[in-house]
């Protein structure tokens, strides 16, 4: 009686592990967008239902950090590198018919993106509107009757426009909202903290060696390259297989963000799930090196978001004291959101390793955290405005998230536990970075 149960449990456990290991491929096989990593479209269909708050608790404050919506590529390089390679090969008759299609597509991409590098797109604005519409409808108590919204964006235009688009959506539902919007450099110290020496330390020679080995191991481009070029001798002399393949895949995957020719994307159809899986692996490992607790570079990168987390906590403290209700909305970048999620250990993203190969099986998937419009919402609950026994829950991309703290009310956590735990983590981070307070 007990033995079959144990066996079933073991099989389920093994199955889960196995399932996790295979699932990135199967997800990508079903949905190319997942391979795009940080270039992915925000997944806003099939959002799970939210768990009702414990009896008597009502939401009164939301503290948010969101990435800007879908955008054009930031610069021409990702388009121009493969375009020039294909163009040169074409002039010598070295492209296959499929290679010529790719060349034509790249020309269209470049024309479409000209003078729009980094611009927020219509797709991006729709994402932002959708997120705010659901926020205002899921937590109406936060926005009703004299609520405030203090919105902040980085100084980057797509972030300021994401902010404006979002705020408009809230005002549409609640015309009486008291709104401020800011895009001042004076907030950059926490909205998009920069630390050049920390950033440089992410990619030391040692890390680079390991990452290059990782790329060599996983970067199988031969089939893809053979599909585009008709002369292998020419390829070996003139074509960087790695970068041509990488940028073409990137170009294909960024396309759906721009809404151009909605479902027709010959580039996207050109590549196989294996190609996309390879792209995902490399992007994911790179994201981990740059934003995760990667032991190859001293596991320090997420600590740069200590400033942001401390600011979020102290703003919450003052809102709680003031008895006001409303939201602090912050609009920035994935290079902030991803390390913030790692710093907070949300859903296990504080995973530490030196083994880049383990990321996939351990579920450290950047794609799940920081697609375009990726966002974190900390929702605060209380019984009434003198209540000091507050609860919080955290939504990562609008899904209830698990925090590394004990709670008998999960996905709800006690604010006092949250505060204590994260102030401690922030202090650890600050001491690791040698920040003097």
């Amino acid at each position, binding site marked *: 009686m007990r033995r079959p149960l144990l066996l079933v449990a073991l099989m389920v456990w093994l199955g889960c592990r196995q399932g996790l290991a295979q699932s990135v491929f199967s997800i990508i096989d079903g949905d190319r967008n997942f391979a795009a990593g940080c270039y992915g479209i925000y997944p806003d269909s099939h959002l799970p239902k939210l768990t009702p708050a414990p009896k008597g608790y009502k939401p009164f404050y939301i503290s948010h950090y969101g990435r800007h919506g879908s955008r054009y590529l930031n610069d021409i390089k990702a388009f121009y590198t493969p375009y020039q390679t294909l163009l040169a090969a074409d002039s010598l008759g070295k492209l296959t018919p499929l290679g010529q299609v790719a060349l034509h597509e790249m020309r269209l991409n470049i024309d479409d993106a000209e003078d729009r590098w980094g611009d927020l797109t219509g797709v991006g604005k729709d994402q932002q509107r959708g997120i705010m519409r659901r926020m205002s409808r899921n937590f109406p108590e936060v926005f009703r009757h004299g609520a405030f919204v203090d919105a902040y964006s980085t100084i980057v235009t797509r972030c300021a426009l994401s902010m404006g688009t979002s705020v*408009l959506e809230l005002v549409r*539902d609640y015309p009486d909202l008291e709104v401020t919007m800011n895009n001042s450099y004076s907030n950059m110290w926490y909205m998009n903290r920069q630390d050049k020496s920390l950033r440089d330390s992410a990619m030391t020679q040692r890390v680079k060696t390991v990452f290059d080995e990782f790329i060599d191991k996983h970067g199988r481009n031969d089939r893809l390259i053979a599909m585009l070029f008709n002369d292998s001798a020419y390829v070996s002399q003139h074509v960087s297989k790695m970068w041509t393949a990488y940028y073409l895949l990137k170009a294909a995957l960024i396309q759906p963000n721009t809404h151009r020719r909605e479902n027709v994307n010959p580039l996207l159809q050109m590549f196989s799930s294996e190609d996309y899986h390879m792209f995902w692996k490399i992007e994911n490992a790179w994201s981990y090196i740059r934003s995760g607790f990667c032991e190859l570079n001293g596991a320090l990168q997420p600590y740069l978001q200590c400033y942001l987390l401390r600011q979020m906590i102290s703003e919450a403290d003052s809102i709680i004291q003031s008895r006001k209700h409303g939201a602090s909305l912050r609009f920035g970048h994935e290079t902030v959101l991803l390390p913030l999620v790692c710093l907070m250990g949300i859903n296990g993203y504080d995973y530490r390793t030196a083994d880049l190969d383990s990321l996939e099986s351990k579920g450290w998937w950047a794609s799940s955290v920081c697609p375009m419009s990726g966002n974190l919402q900390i929702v605060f609950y209380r019984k009434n405005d003198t209540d000091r026994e507050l609860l919080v829950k955290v939504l990562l991309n609008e899904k209830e998230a698990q925090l590394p703290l004990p709670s008998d009310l999960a996905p709800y956590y006690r604010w006092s536990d949250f505060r204590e735990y994260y102030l401690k983590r922030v202090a650890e981070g600050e001491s690791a970075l040698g920040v003097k307070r």
Partner: protein
Amino acid sequence: MKKWLLAAVITLLITPLYGQTAYNEIHYNHLKSASNYMAYPGPVQQELTPAPRGYKPFYLSHYGRHGSRYHSKPSTYNAPYLTLLKADSLGKLTTIGKDIMRRLDVIRHDAENHWGDLTELGARQQQDIARRMFERFPELFQGHTEVDARSTGVGRCVLSMEYAMVELLRLNPELSIHMNATHRDMHYLNLQDKELFNLRKTQKAKQAFMDFRDKNNDFSHLMRTLFNDSSYVREHIRPFDFAEQLMLVAAIMQNVELGKKITLYDVFTPDEAYRIWEVGNAYWYIGWGASPATDSKMPYVQRNLLRKIIEQADSCIQLPTTNVHLRYGHETVLLPLLCLLDVNGFGLVTNDLAHLDSLHWINHKAFPMGANVQFVFYRKNDKDRDPLFKVLLNENEATLPLKSVSGPYYHWSDFRTYYLKKLDAYEN
């Protein structure tokens, strides 16, 4: 006979003074000497002229400057402070000089990391302008009307647009608002025309400006007020440059919250304030107006914007729906546009820099913070293809060099013909 002559002489003497609007304004109120840093005064005209019988507004086309802001560079705040700091270290400041230095220190710290930021007042200006737009032309903002708003990529312009849109949406949550800020629009929202800009650097242009400036270089009162050693001043201070630097900081204070507590205007006499304004006005006239010193060409830097305004109006005239085009940018665009259009006589061509004031070429009438021009189009019904329009400059009805149909109302077809010809003549 002699009495008559005396009366005539006196009349001649005081006439220019009466004619000098800015002179009187500045004597009455230092804030008016701030040129492009003047905060938006709001409309003087409370009641607008009703449209001719049967005409209803159906389209609005606008270009607006961002609202009140901080100075965009730390050096603007630091320059006069550092001059005073150095003089102080050598014991060359008067008590007032030390006090001004302390005030400057407070001001520059307040501005730290806010370079170019839209201020609270700037946000309010945009909301007020948008609200009045809605209230004055409610027909334009009914139901799901499309409002197309575009801004330059500069943070304060994007924010100005967003504050305005929030206000419109509050008044009608059903509006269909589109906001954009893309480099793709910069060829008309903020064209940078190096060839024309170079006209400002010619010897002719520089000389015209410097000659005028050198005639307005008496700041002995200000120097005596701040510095206790005239030989130090002679050796180390360039009076006009220093007075102008100090005035730049004085001028910006009306735009920021700290300005409610601190002013720097008290050290300037009205004449000094006017002198700085007058030189600044000449600077803007030469650099952006139809000044012969720059071959009367500078306004054409806005040729693309004017063409865009015409093209978009033409297309909206064909539509049965109501439309709104709002554009957010800079005074360096708005001013030459007004000169190109010759709105309220801003197309003035003169070599007489000393009389710009009495000729009514007064920069802050054009481009304070939040300044805007609105073209409001009227038609009888949605099949009417011969609309009328009027122009509002800073929300007051304005004149154009065209024959009016009635009061401030003009035929769009007259506008089109006149300005397309003007643009064609320049471009060919």
